[in-house]
């Protein structure tokens, strides 16, 4: 076990993993039953990456996560009810019903921003956050997560170049779940190793098993301290897998891009199962303690859903508010009179 991982921390990480998993499962359930609108992109199977990295980072570091990065809010102790409320389109939600599923903004309080409609678009934004840290002399670093599909976007290349040029405190974390929707990473990415993309710019690229939260934690811990001490950007490539489809609608699409065997094989490495087993095997904690975390989580989830369901819907007449911080009469223009 890593030296910084004491019993408390280990159990805490388990809670993060399990809560994220339960949250995602709940979201899918609520989506199926019509409580949540639109397609959903849960990160089932990929929880360990965000949990490992965020536990290694400080609580005030800036985090930009992808549409499968729900774990980030959970690690930062956000009330899960705020996320549910947002997905229910309620006023109490973290974006007051404006952003919805893929755009959780908890930046002001928790320094976490989930924005991924643009695939790679958040990467330069968080490169900019790192530049801001540097210009303002802040000690924080910026960590940005993106998928293997986003690696083909020009923005990644430009951001990596800029990060290296300004020696920015930023960690690029690739959540390599092997498929950009249906396209295999070997098909779309021409680099022999994904870490070559970073090496091409002359900075470090580390590959790590994305299903093993301890290994991720260890790699992230070291990277965070290097980056914070002015070592410049680092690229972590975490190999992971999503157990579910790209989005919830995939169930009805009848796609054949991966085999059931492949999924089953990856499922044996599920961090939600392997991590507590390891804790018990190594005698760090008892199965009762694991069980009590589970119960705590179930309670939290139930309460959160209740909270969200009882929330208020935003008032229709507020739909045009908050477009601009400095308001002028007549803007934004209504589309009708």
């Amino acid at each position, binding site marked *: 076990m890593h030296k910084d991982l004491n019993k408390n921390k280990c159990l805490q990480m388990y809670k993060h993993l399990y809560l994220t998993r339960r949250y995602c499962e709940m979201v899918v359930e609520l989506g199926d039953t019509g409580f949540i609108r639109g397609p959903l992109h849960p990160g089932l199977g990929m929880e360990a990456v965000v949990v490992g990295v965020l536990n290694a980072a400080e609580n005030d570091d800036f985090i930009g996560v992808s549409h499968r990065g729900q774990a980030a809010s959970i690690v930062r102790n956000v009330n899960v009810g705020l996320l549910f409320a947002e997905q229910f*389109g309620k006023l109490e939600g973290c974006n007051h019903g404006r952003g*919805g599923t893929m755009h959780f903004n908890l930046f002001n309080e928790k320094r976490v921003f989930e924005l991924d409609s643009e695939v790679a678009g958040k990467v330069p934004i968080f490169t900019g956050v790192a530049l801001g840290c540097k210009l303002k002399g802040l000690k924080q670093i910026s960590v940005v997560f993106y998928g293997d599909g986003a690696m083909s976007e*020009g923005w990644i290349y430009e951001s990596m170049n800029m990060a290296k040029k300004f020696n920015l405190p930023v960690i690029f974390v690739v959540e390599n779940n092997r498929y950009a929707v249906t396209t295999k990473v070997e098909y779309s990415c021409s680099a022999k190793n994904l870490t070559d993309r970073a090496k091409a710019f002359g900075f470090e690229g580390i590959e790590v098993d994305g299903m093993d939260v301890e290994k991720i934690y260890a790699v992230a811990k070291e990277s965070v301290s290097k980056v914070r001490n002015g070592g410049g950007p680092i690229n972590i490539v975490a190999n992971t897998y999503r157990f579910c489809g790209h989005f919830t609608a995939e169930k009805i699409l009848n796609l054949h891009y991966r085999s059931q065997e492949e999924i089953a094989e990856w499922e044996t490495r599920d961090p939600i199962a392997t991590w507590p087993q390891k804790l018990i095997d190594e005698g760090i904690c008892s199965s009762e303690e694991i069980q009590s975390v589970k119960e705590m989580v179930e309670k939290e989830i139930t309460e959160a859903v209740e909270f969200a369901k009882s929330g208020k819907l*935003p008032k229709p007449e507020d739909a045009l508010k908050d477009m601009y911080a400095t308001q002028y009469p007549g803007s934004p223009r209504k589309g*009708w009179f």
Partner: protein
Amino acid sequence: MREIRYLQAVAEALNNEMKISDEVLVMGEDVRESLRGVTKGLYTTYGKDRVIDFPISEQGMIGCGIGSAISGFRPVIEFQINEFTFFAFEQLILQSQRLRFYSGGKIKIPLTYIVPGSGARGGISGQHSDNPYSFLIEGGMKVVIPSCAYDAKGLLISAIRDNDPVAVFLPTRVLAEKGEVPEEQYTVPLGKADIKKTGSDITVVATGHCVNIALEVARKLEEEKISVEVFDPRTLFPFDKETLKESISKTGKVVIIDDSPVSCGFGCEVSALIGEEYFNLIKAPVKIVARADVPIPFSEPLEEVVLPNSAKLENAIRELMGRTNA
């Protein structure tokens, strides 16, 4: 005649064009598996050389399309998400649209862009719900937006056979609708509007799924003896002025309903056109019912406010009719 869904009509048109001509290629993201349903089954029929999946690199993909179009192919590029047009905006406008012009008319770029599922899809929020056609119109690109299955098949075929870049927008809200579609290949000419319903009191210019809204409102108002003419431009650019002129000279009143942001949008262009050329035919203000100038919010009650809908259209029509009646 048989009835099929809008999306099936699109897929059929594409499939047949690929069958007829080896020059037609399909490019896009996840087009082999066909996430959007437009390219379903094409990969197994035509193979990897004609149905090409791209990495998520929109600029590179459009560039690749331009190059192969100049070399004699007719690529059909699918944008999986409407906002992806923004990523490749430079390639779309400055290159694909302008290369022919700046080469002095020496080259042809027969490209077709398909944007399946444009517009709000319900619960997909601000960055996946745009209808970016006004941007392309301003850039000078030909834009079509079929409103029913019949038009979809005919217009897509025309678009593919056209020798310039044409953007085809397929609004989410009509994709599942059924309509009569002939089995054989036929074309609906670009630049020709269609009167979806004739009427004598007021002209409603409606685009894409708004045509259905307009028809619904028209039927409702019929009971109140307001006769609404529903004008579907089908091709937004080049716009069919003549047919509009005929309609206006009959009715003298216009409401435009269009699902893109109002400022500098397509609605403004039609209104300005009327104000400039048909001012004397008009007897009342030209009203626009369009999206408000904000991104689409996630929450349902908010989304309803931002988007054009039948209630807003009805209000606008009533106001215009009332004003002149008074």
